[in-house]
């Protein structure tokens, strides 16, 4: 069986996997990080989004062996050791951007990548489009969009430029 060495939330892991083991199975079943969810298994819902070397990835659609040598961040790795939330988590909380919480880990991970990759600012339209790969059955998305817009200035350290639609 192949071995995979990877860093998850700052901790080094070396794990034996099958060739077909998915990254999400490695995270949930081998490392025990069940914050990353499987909503569909078919790349549709985004509940499984994690960061691989800083980029958001649907972990149900990546083989564990492809993550060999990578740095992976999951929802469990966002808050500081003293419990201080990441600004995106804080804004989700503040703006009531979750109900049952099942989609939330994937939403937050996707949203962080969305903000990081748009230092020039984000329109509401861009946020909605950026969330196309994440499904939420509870909230109606409105508060999620608000939370992401509110997190942008906190993460970028400047006020959101008035972006043209």
């Amino acid at each position, binding site marked *: 069986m192949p071995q995979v060495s990877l860093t998850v939330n700052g901790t080094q892991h070396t794990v034996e996997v099958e060739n*077909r083991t998915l990254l999400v199975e490695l995270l949930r079943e081998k490392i025990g990080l*069940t*914050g990353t969810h*499987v909503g569909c298994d078919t790349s549709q819902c985004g509940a499984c989004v994690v960061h691989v070397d800083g980029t958001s990835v649907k972990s149900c659609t990546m083989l564990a062996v492809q993550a060999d040598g990578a740095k992976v961040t999951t*929802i469990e790795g966002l808050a500081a050791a003293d419990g201080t939330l990441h600004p995106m*988590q804080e804004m989700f*909380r503040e703006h009531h951007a*979750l109900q049952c*919480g099942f989609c939330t*880990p994937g939403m937050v991970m996707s949203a962080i990548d969305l903000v990081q990759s748009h230092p020039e600012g984000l329109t509401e339209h861009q946020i909605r489009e950026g969330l196309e790969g994440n499904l939420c059955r509870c909230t109606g998305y409105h508060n999620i969009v608000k939370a992401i817009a509110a997190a942008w200035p906190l993460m970028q350290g400047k006020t959101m430029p008035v972006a043209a639609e």
Partner: protein
Amino acid sequence: MGHDGIGASVRRKEDLRFLNGRGHYTDDVNRPGQLYAYIRRSDRPHARLGAIDTSAAKASPGVVAVFTGADMQADGVGGLPCGWQIHNKDGSPMAEPPHPVLAVGKVRHVGDPVAVVIAHTRQQAKDAA
């Protein structure tokens, strides 16, 4: 809207654990010795079920049990009940067709559950199914 008392926006207690990935959903439960079920589903939209031969699945590595609709009937496992019984206009009870947990005699849609495999790991159950 008021900012305290009635109408105030209140932070939810449960959000913190959901936001930190510490929610505990059914699929997150992991008990020592836990077994996994995998459901074999129909690939036909409407077809009669012949005899189901479960011997190969039962002999597959890690498999503990395989059940079909006939096993469910023999064990007296009922169907999925309708959760909301209503009456017809004339007061007679609504028609409630049977909805067996595993198909009996006939499958009626693609994805209709035909058999369930119980095994030590999810992969073993899937392979056998």
